[in-house]
């Protein structure tokens, strides 16, 4: 189930991001689904899976973006890894804790990208990019990620609530 899910994410997330997501863009900014997926994978499945999923999604996203490939790979991989490390210290993961982690990591990743690509543009251009791209993206990522987490948690809770027989089958 998990490998199929990850393969689906790898093949479908970036095309969806490049084509269909413009219908949900706010002030010209779309949520970064790859970052959200890497963060969720890290937060829920641990740092290694978060890192690997982040790296793989970063490669695919980088191939369909004008930016430097490595920058995408490292930021997405880093987000997966850090989300895994953050998830380890949360005893009771909730939507609110994920919201905080996602917002923090989105902001951090955005700052790294901004420093890398706008370092020569002056402070005014930097601040403008922060206000017009980084801030809306952080909000959108946090909202989308929390919504997805809420859906996953609900599904898991529902599955756990189903009584099972001794052989592990639904009784």
């Amino acid at each position, binding site marked *: 189930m998990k490998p199929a899910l990850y393969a689906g994410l*790898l*093949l*479908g997330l*970036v*095309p*969806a*991001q*490049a*084509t*269909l997501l*413009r*219908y949900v863009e706010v002030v010209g*900014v*779309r949520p*970064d689904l*790859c970052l959200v997926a890497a963060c969720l994978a890290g937060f*829920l*499945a*641990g*740092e*290694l*899976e*978060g*890192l690997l999923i982040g*790296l793989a999604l970063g*490669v*695919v*996203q*980088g*191939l*369909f*973006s*004008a*930016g*430097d*490939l*490595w920058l*995408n*790979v*490292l930021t997405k*991989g*880093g987000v997966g*890894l850090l989300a*895994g*490390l953050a998830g*380890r210290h949360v005893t009771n*993961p909730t939507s609110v804790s994920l919201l905080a982690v996602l917002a923090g990591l989105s902001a951090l990743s955005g700052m790294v*990208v*901004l420093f890398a*690509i*706008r370092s020569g*543009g002056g402070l005014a*251009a930097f601040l*403008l*990019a922060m206000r*017009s*791209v980084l801030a809306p*993206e952080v909000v959108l990522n946090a909202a989308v990620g929390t919504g997805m987490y809420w859906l996953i948690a609900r599904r*898991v809770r529902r599955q756990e609530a189903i009584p099972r027989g001794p052989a592990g089958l639904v009784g």
Partner: protein
Amino acid sequence: MFRTTSGTRRAALFLFVLLLSVVFLLPKQSRGLLQNMGRPIAQLVSFPLEAFSALDRSLRDFWGGYVALHRVAEENRRLHREVEQLRGRNVDLQEMVTASQRLAGLLELKKRVGPRTVAAQVVGRDATNWYRSVVLDKGERDGIRVEMGVMTPDGVVGRVVRTTPFSSVVLLIIDPNNAVTGLIQRTREEGIVEGTVQGRARLKYIPLLSTVRTGDVVVTSGLTGGFPRGVAIGTVTRIDKVEGDLFQSAEIAPEVDFLKYEEVLVITDPRPSGESQKEPALPADSSKGPKP
């Protein structure tokens, strides 16, 4: 939910640090390696990209040709059912006329520029929010290479910055990371056209004594980049002179509407038709093509 052990944490940290070291110690080699590793993945992803792009076009057609029309039809249905049907057909026909006009313009431009262009369709936007770029449905297999210029009948769109066998990424001229040499058509003075954070373009390094004024047309100079001389870039809308600066700059409104175009031409050889035909053939052992 699915917690991992501390061993995997060490492995993850080690892998990340290793990758960071490789990137910083061998930047060029690692970039090439990653690009080559990504090629088969890009080929795989190009299929869902095509599918999503087709879905995107259908959604646009549905919205433009049905949902928007449906509202009008609801009003009309009460009055004339027949008018609704005619209007539906009219929209289809108008869409066909617009598409054929667009394609005729593209064909006309292709004839004018010469045969060294490849027509491509825009299938997506940049996969991140940080760049203003578009994804085309043609790639290395169609002869598209990095640094080639991209245009529409209206003017310059941008230049190719990344290619895979089936797709390519074009950095738009309004992106701050892009730069093309431009020429003020009236005064013949050259400068560099760069994108701005606000999504416009700016002609920089105009001599202080230049008589540039608003309304002047800026075209490509043809000296560098993948463009022939004289392709429209935009019109000067504002001139900025800062006291003490050695040059002045001008804000440009691009000729191309970056929200509307769907088909573009990739210039595979910017030289005029005669020049490239006169050029002697490459020696048999020169397997590598000319640098873009």
